[in-house]
């Protein structure tokens, strides 16, 4: 470029740098605009998101038992708790809990015998076994998490309590989940 030095049309190097940077930025922006629809197409499709609510008849559960239903591809536990199990859950001091939450917040008022939780261990998503473990709730066979009769994590690697899904009582014996 030495011969350009005396040329009156010699360009200011700052202008050339600007063009390089602007062109590079435009290419990166265009690349991102092309990539985004491709990435976004991997998000849940409309029909997947449209998975609606389900209703469940509570008379199907016996006291001291649970029924597993499938909602949005995940298991949901509906557990009819015995008075002793409710008493155990309600009397646990919050200080003993890894993810403190009173039992009353995890059931609907006046329906404390029915516990509805998503049956995926909050550690890595296995389905915990009913009635097993040190606290009478559930025990996850994969990595040894123990849940109590309120579905709260008590021991093991799971960080959170079993998730209570959004649900409401359609009548005294029917719940609508979702």
């Amino acid at each position: 470029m030495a011969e350009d030095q005396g040329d009156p049309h010699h360009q200011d190097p700052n202008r050339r740098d600007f063009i390089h940077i602007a062109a590079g930025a435009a290419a990166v922006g265009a690349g991102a605009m092309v990539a985004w629809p491709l990435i976004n197409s991997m998000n849940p499709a409309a029909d997947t998101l449209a998975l609606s609510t389900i209703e469940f008849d509570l008379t199907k559960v016996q006291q001291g038992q649970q029924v597993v239903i499938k909602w949005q591809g995940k298991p949901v536990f509906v557990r009819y708790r015995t008075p002793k199990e409710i008493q155990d859950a309600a009397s646990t001091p919050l200080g003993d809990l890894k993810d403190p939450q009173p039992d009353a917040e995890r059931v609907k008022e006046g329906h404390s015998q029915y516990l509805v939780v998503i049956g995926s261990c909050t550690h890595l998503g296995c389905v915990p076994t009913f009635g097993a473990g040190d606290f009478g709730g559930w025990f996850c066979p994969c990595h040894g998490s123990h849940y109590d009769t309120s579905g709260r994590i008590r021991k093991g690697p799971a960080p959170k309590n079993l998730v209570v899904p959004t649900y409401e009582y359609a009548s005294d014996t029917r719940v609508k989940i979702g």
Partner: protein
Amino acid sequence: MSDHESTYVPKTAIERWMDTRLPIIRFGADYMALPTPRNLNYWWTFGAILALCLVIQIATGVILAMHYVPNTELAFASVERIMRDVNGGDLIRYTHANGASMFFIAVYLHMLRGLYYGSYKAPREMIWIIGCVIFFLMIATAFLGYVLPWGQMSFWGAEVITNLIGAIPLIGEPILIWLRGGPAIDNATLNRFFSLHYLLPFVIAGCVVLHLWALHSAGQNNPVGILIPKERTAKDTVPFHPYFTVKDGFAIILFLMLFAYFVFFNPNALGHADNYIPANPLQTPAHIVPEWYMLPFYAILRAIPDKFGGVVAMFGAIGVLFILPWLDTSRVRSMRYRPSMKIFFMIFVLVGIGLGWCGAQLPDAPVVPGMPSFVLFDGALNSYLWLTRLFTAYYFAFFFLIMPIVGLKETPLPIPATISEPVLAGGDAMTAAAPASPEKKG
């Protein structure tokens, strides 16, 4: 060694025509004539074995994809159809499934060879790092492929492993849903896993090209670990072909015998019976274990009581390999001349096997049944949980403490000046007298 001059002479008119347009025959001929250290032992044959493994996996995989249906309703049945109805389908599938295990046996031995002989040290860092990328892609590909038969282990393996990503604070959950294509593992997940399982082997093949390019640029390491001086090239190297094509070929035959044993006589020995049960999203198998080649990393995951911490440790166990060239402070490559490091290396190999063993056990189970024990923090001392933690501690200490410290403290044994010196006892006196006379050697 990369700067060796081309000795290829086109012999026919077609070769001459080709040579001025696309010198691909020259490329192949130069590759075969590559000066290779003459002292390479059988630990150096795993590169060729791994190339064969990749070819076998791609060839059988492309055929299997012609018969497989990536749909949650049909996947399991389509795999059973391959096993029962497709001509030779059972052998093709068993070759592909056991081929994955063979691939990992070979890659672990290949990596341990690199570790023992210091093949990751300057000027070969890029060979090692690309190798680590290939290893990571292999793990990803193997995991994706294991999901495809849509058995119980497939489904719950996918559930557990994708949940690892959900452990990342804040952004984990949206990424998890994006990755699965829905709130749970379902058809969208299976479809994309199939797509990626088909894609990644070709990405691996691309990385293998880079791996070899870097290898031929920096030159091969050798058991003595010294760089071969330019004036010694003729004495200390031999052409790749026929010397190492034959040696690699012999090792490949031995390896294929092991491969054939599993495919023909024990095809399900390395798998899990639970994967012959169709996937059920409502019931987890009593005992989930990954395939054997992931057990050490799975053990590390379980050893950490915190969910995110476990995920970090597990990925860290692979990630640490990438920075290995900068953790080792020793200037001696080969552990042949590093008496203390050699012992730590042997313990490391045993710890790796121990981690794999622990990964297959229930964490709460006692290591020595019946031995009295006490609870330390969150588990009995006499349990696989604490044994795993001990091994995990050694795994990381090996890289972050032992490698840097031993490299500085250790007094290495005297290193031979040439690779022929240890062979010709008493030293290569002839060479010492007349160092630069390569033409005599032809």
